[in-house]
């Protein structure tokens, strides 16, 4: 499967009620260490109830400047939540169904990955 097929899908709960759009997929670099970099696995999906468009990540990191851009971006994606991958029931073409009682977790990332 290609990532961009998943991005932008509608996310619905177990009863078919639309929760929002899938704007990103949370990965974690863990699992069996392969040749250079450890395995990268999907650990969750990020759902934005109000906006389908690509986000600049302000709402997931404590980035607040420049205010003129950060504030509207955070407003546009307010209410975004993370869903653990184990709570995903079915993935269809353009549609992801969650299990009943799926938790809405805090989407923010711990610290921005710094390379140098």
């Amino acid at each position, binding site marked *: 499967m290609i990532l961009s097929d998943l991005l932008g899908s509608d996310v619905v709960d177990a009863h078919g009620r639309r929760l929002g759009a899938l704007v990103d997929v949370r990965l974690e670099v863990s699992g069996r260490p392969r040749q250079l970099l450890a395995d990268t696995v999907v650990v969750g999906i990020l759902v934005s109830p109000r906006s389908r468009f*690509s986000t*600049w990540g302000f709402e997931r*990191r404590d980035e607040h*400047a*420049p*205010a003129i*851009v950060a504030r509207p971006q955070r407003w546009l994606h307010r209410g975004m939540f993370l869903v653990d991958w184990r709570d995903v029931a079915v993935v269809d073409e353009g549609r992801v169904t969650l299990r009943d009682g799926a938790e809405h977790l805090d989407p923010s990332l711990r610290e*921005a990955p*710094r390379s140098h």
Partner: protein
Amino acid sequence: MKRLFSVALGILTAIGGFVDIGDLVTNAVVGSRFGLGLAWVVLVGVVGICVFAQMSGRVAAVSGRATFEIIRERLGPRAGLANLGASFLINLLTLTAEIGGVALALQLATSVDPLLWMPVAAFGVWIAVWRARFRLLENVTGLLGLTLIVFAVALFMLAPDWNALAGQALQRGTPQDEPVATYWFFAVALFGAAMTPYEVFFFSSGAIEERWTEKDLATSRLNVLVGFPLGGLLSIAIAGCAAVVLLPASIDVTSLSQVVLPVADAGGKVALAFAIVGILAATFGAALETTLSSGYTLAQYFGWSWGKFRRPAKAARFHLSMIICLFVAVAILATGVDPIVVTEFSVVFSAVALPLTYLPILIIANDREYMGDRVNGRGMNAIGTVYLVIILIAAIAAIPLLIITGGGA
């Protein structure tokens, strides 16, 4: 002593590098119609390019990522592609104007038809981009471009009525005999001439070409904060010369030859020689920068290997795209289109393209993932945001004004 020389060299190069065919023509046109009435726009533009170049230089030096990589990464492929399309076409327009400028300058020196000079100019630009080292290109064209100071000298030699000039510059509101739309059209054109996007692509990619460190960042700040304002003063001097000589004779500037007549009037053959050499160097330098910028934008968007520091075979598509751009530029000029008209369009559309490249840089300059603790300070963000608003207004107003005034007629 060596350090002092390199600092001086940096500043002089920034002065020479600031002025290009867009500044030359637009300031002369504005000077011949509004005198120094629009000088304030040049000052606003110069502060803007200082802020913009500073930020993009720091982003490149600290994060190691060049402008168009960031634009694509931050805006995504679709918005990034639209941005690339607009910025690339406008850069190509500017490149065409610069090569036309070189040909016109050569015509002034030799009275040989510019159409014959254009392929020679394009070939000269290609050879320089193909062989010469990055720093060498910058210094030679920057220093030779410095001879444009003759416009400031000429302004003094013309011994104008200084308070009349000052009166024009400080005049509130728009002059009566010019329609308001034309005044604001030329304000946007002048702003676009001062804040040309290619300068930022070239500036930030140059930071990577020369592997800037924190120390280089300090010297670059000096170059920008001293060199660009002096370049701005030079632009105002060009408008001043036109205001003193061409405005009273109601000569509207439509060709490069009219731009240099005031200098000949003031200082005769010697001054004229300086002016022609200065224009030749400034337009040739700008042609180099716009050629490289067209290569940078494409390579950085598509992720190709790029850079003057690499041998051409190691950045093949980068060099191929520049060769194609030079051919396209010469082809456009070969249709007989007037390079001055191309220049006027290129500066207006530069104003349109500015937000497309300014916004991502302003965002990334605040992104700790890229900048670590070197993110924008409160002050820089304040002025950066003010300029985002100014740039957006100019961009939105540019095309309607172009249509209403029919190109400033």
